[in-house]
């Protein structure tokens, strides 16, 4: 199966942008991730098995693209995170603090946190997506939670 590109864009553009933002902490670079991911989908000739397969494929491409950008020597910060955050209409101050705390995490922690808490991925699914073993994912998740707890205090629960 192959879903129409426009439909895939409508469904996933915000989610892929959030993944790019979480990994790169930079809206310009995150926009590149979105652009390149959908271009890749649009020109991809093979069929997918299911909607889940498409989602997993898109996230894999987006994560790899973000890793490529991280490695590039000319990785830019044309728009600062502070400027970008000023454009987000957060409902509550706690939302802004949580967003800021996630953006301050090293990428290897923030992507794991994001896939777990935003995309509802299981540890096994995160391990598959990031090509890590489950133990590594658990360690990263635990360290990230610890940092978030230290920073957000009562606004971040001890529950998993």
């Amino acid at each position, binding site marked *: 199966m192959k879903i129409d590109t426009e439909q895939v864009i409508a469904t996933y553009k915000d989610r*892929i942008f959030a993944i790019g933002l979480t990994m790169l902490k930079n809206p310009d670079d995150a926009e590149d991730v979105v652009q390149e991911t959908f*271009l890749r989908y649009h020109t991809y000739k093979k069929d997918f098995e299911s909607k889940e397969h498409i989602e997993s494929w898109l996230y894999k491409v987006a994560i790899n693209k973000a890793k490529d950008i991280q490695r590039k020597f000319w990785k830019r910060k044309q728009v600062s995170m502070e400027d970008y955050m000023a454009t987000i209409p957060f409902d509550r101050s706690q939302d802004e603090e949580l967003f800021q705390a996630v953006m301050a995490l090293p990428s290897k922690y923030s992507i794991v946190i994001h896939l777990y808490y*935003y995309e509802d991925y299981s540890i096994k699914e995160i391990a598959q997506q990031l090509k890590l073993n489950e133990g590594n994912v658990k360690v990263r998740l635990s360290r990230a939670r610890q940092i978030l707890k230290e920073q957000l205090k009562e606004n971040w629960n001890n529950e998993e």
Partner: protein
Amino acid sequence: MKNKEAYKQAFKHVHYQKEINLNQRKIPKSLLTLATSLIVLLSTFTVAYAFDVGGIQSKLEVWFHGEKRSVQYEKVQDNAYHFYTTDKNGDVVDMGVHIGLKGTPFGIQTMNGDEIANSLNDDSEIVYDEKEDKYIFYYQDKAVDITKMFDKEKECYLVINNGEKDIYFVISYKDKIDEDSTISQYSDENAAVTQGVTVKDIKNRFIRIK
């Protein structure tokens, strides 16, 4: 509110705003050069801006990927410091968030940013060079291609003189070198590598890097 609900609430207003162009483009080389020049100019400005943002505490020199780099840090939490450096083009390189602990006569204490920066000078790191498909081990001014230096036990033994003394490294991994490797570092030949086995006992395994 549960963490998952709070997280989704925090990210619910994150939207991709631009149009997505599905036409593949080829950029003429002259335009590419111009664009790159502009990017470098912009980034130089941004570096200055980013480093002027409140909270930057210090400017120090630290070994990073085989080169002495100017490093700055920002205190992001009580004991955590976010380190940055710049590459040869002046672009910001994120060195991650570090928390340091030190033993004192009064027990274990946390390090301040300057102390962490100094301790980074003695840090080693493995980086995967995707272009060359190589794993590079960095320690101070040394960059060693360790890709084919592992034995059957997935262990690699190196010794490097840091100008003052020999430092012994035992690098091991489980599945992927850059993802689950462990680097054990010893400055004393009598230090135990495993129970009952000291560095001195297995000294002939270490390959000296000059």
